[in-house]
């Protein structure tokens, strides 16, 4: 007799259980492709353990999505229940649980090789991995699986992408809340899994937090009063008071993982060199947006091209491939610091342009990035039932800084000369220019 459930060993969640229908998604070519896309691109050149793939992460997300769904739908008060009629319908509850788990499993299907490394510059305007994910979920290839599971692909797209990315779809209140379970800024299980998984594989403890406790205390709650005039009748994912410290730990984990790992300067410059290589070697410098073409490409094909280019000086991208493989990456010339920032918030851009003008445009790279994370303001239900803003009860959350990348990188061959030049000219270079005529 065929097994009703299939168990997969996982380094973070121990076992991940899939139904036979869910297993068909796992076995589909678009999902199997994720076995060959590194979660963190070339980060393994800095942290050797960072060789895990989108495949493992997506399995982690289905597991956490199912757990979070069960907790939030079983711990709900009458006011919220009235606002979300689907919760009281047993058949709909089963449907949406299945749709949410599939959204968790499929949320990364459209990733380009090497995940996020320079995605924006390697796709035509208006395209993103989220849009490609939606195309794959809606594709003829996946449709028979959804038909068997009696799931609507657009429902999976909504929950996998959320209102920010699935802008062509109209969301109900219920669908909006469910999408927050996957992609929500505060408690999205996508982020929970990647923090836990990345920190585990990399070997840094910063990304750990008590996700068992956190998920057990997740609740669908009315918005805390934004001011003294009352609250809009809207719902958000929040926590019971007992979960506030686990929530703080999650936000601190996020801060430390960004500032210590994701924004590590050498990791960042490898992303830039990789983008340069792909721009040089891909047809018209872009990945295809036709999913039948995209699904043929993984990290493996691009890594093979990288080595071929490294071995043959006549191949396109040879010099960039050498930089990556021989670790001749650009070095940090400047990074944001309070003194320069106070004089000119655009100091990095000024230094980059001045350095290019002095030494040549190809000798430098500029990297400015701020992660898309909102303020950690979410509703918390106190033991007396009162709903309060997280920031009104947690100084830890209120004081949490936003991590920033702001680096100027330099070709190592001229680094010493560039450093000396910058030392001599620094103060003059970073002086802010006045507003130009007609510039307003």
């Amino acid at each position, binding site marked *: 007799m065929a097994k009703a459930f299939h168990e997969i060993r996982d380094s973070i969640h121990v076992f991940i259980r899939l139904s036979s229908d869910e297993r068909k998604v796992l076995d589909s070519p678009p999902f199997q492709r994720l076995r060959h896309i590194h979660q963190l691109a070339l980060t393994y050149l800095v942290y050797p353990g960072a060789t895990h793939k989108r495949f493992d992460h997506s399995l982690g997300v289905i597991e956490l999505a199912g757990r979070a769904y069960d907790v939030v739908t079983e711990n709900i008060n009458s006011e919220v229940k009235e606002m979300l009629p689907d919760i009281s319908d047993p058949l709909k509850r089963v449907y949406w649980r299945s749709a949410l788990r599939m959204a968790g499993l499929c949320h990364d299907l459209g990733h380009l090789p090497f995940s996020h490394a320079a995605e924006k510059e390697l796709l035509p305007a208006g395209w993103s991995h989220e849009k490609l994910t939606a195309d794959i979920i809606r594709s003829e290839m996946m449709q028979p699986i959804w038909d068997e599971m009696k799931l609507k692909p657009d429902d999976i797209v909504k929950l996998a992408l959320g*209102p*920010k990315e699935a*802008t062509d779809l*109209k*969301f109900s*209140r219920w669908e*909006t809340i469910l999408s927050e379970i996957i992609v929500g800024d505060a408690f999205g299980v996508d982020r929970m899994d990647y923090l836990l998984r990345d920190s585990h594989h990399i070997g840094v403890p910063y990304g750990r937090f008590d996700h068992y406790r956190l998920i057990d205390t997740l609740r669908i709650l009315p918005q*805390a*009063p*934004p*001011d*003294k*005039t*009352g*609250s*809009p*009748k*809207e719902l958000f994912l929040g926590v019971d008071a007992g979960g506030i410290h686990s929530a703080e730990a999650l936000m601190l984990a996020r801060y430390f993982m960004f500032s210590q790992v994701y924004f590590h300067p050498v990791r960042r410059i490898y992303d830039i060199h990789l983008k340069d290589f792909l721009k040089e070697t891909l047809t018209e410098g872009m990945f295809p947006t036709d999913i039948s073409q995209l699904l043929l490409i993984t990290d493996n094909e691009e890594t093979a091209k990288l080595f071929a280019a490294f071995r043959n000086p006549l191949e396109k991208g040879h010099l960039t491939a050498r930089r990556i493989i021989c670790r001749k990456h650009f070095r940090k010339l400047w990074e944001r610091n309070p003194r320069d*920032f*106070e004089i000119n*918030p*655009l100091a990095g851009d000024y230094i980059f342009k001045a350095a290019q003008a002095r030494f040549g445009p190809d000798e430098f790279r500029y990297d400015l990035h*701020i*992660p*898309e*994370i*909102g*303020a950690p*303001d979410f509703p918390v239900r106190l033991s007396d039932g*009162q*709903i*309060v*803003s997280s*920031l*009104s*009860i947690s*100084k830890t959350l*209120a004081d949490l*800084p*936003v*991590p*920033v990348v702001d680096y100027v990188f330099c070709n190592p061959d001229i680094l010493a000369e560039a450093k000396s030049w910058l030392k001599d000219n620094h103060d003059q270079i970073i002086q*802010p220019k*006045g*507003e130009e005529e007609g*510039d*307003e």
Partner: protein
Amino acid sequence: MNSLKKAAIITSLIDSMRLKGSWCGETHLQKATYFLQELLNVPLGFNFILYKHVPFSFDLRDELTALRANKMISIEPQALPYGPRINSTMISEKIQNNFPKTIKKYQKRIQFIADTLDAKGVLDLEKLATALYVTLQMGRKSSIEERIDEFRDLKPYFSSSEASSTFDVVDHMIEDSRKIVK
């Protein structure tokens, strides 16, 4: 519009709103920016969508994160149970001073928004922003009944009379704004 000019306008809006007694949390600022961009044509470039059934911009949320990261705004937690307020900072004052032409160009429009929305709370702002969204989507030539139906489809917990009076206010705002945006 470059990022520093955008920062100068948004922080100037925050200053003007707070002077008029606005609570100036993120929701208040989202709605005020929506009016500034869509009603007064200040080209901030934010994409507003219906989120939780009212106009909301994820781009603006990301911009506010960037302003926090760059220490141009700060979050001021409030006493239990209320949400935080947003403050401008010394750095944002400096940025505004660096862009006098930009500030001068849009000052009247910023002031119009601050004056019109004054100390309104989120419930009133939600009604006004939804009414403007419906009006811009359907056009002012559509009947008031059609607009009310659409409004109540989005916000069923407001009555028809509340919707109707909100459209009156928004129609006046549209007329008044035309005197400023010529």
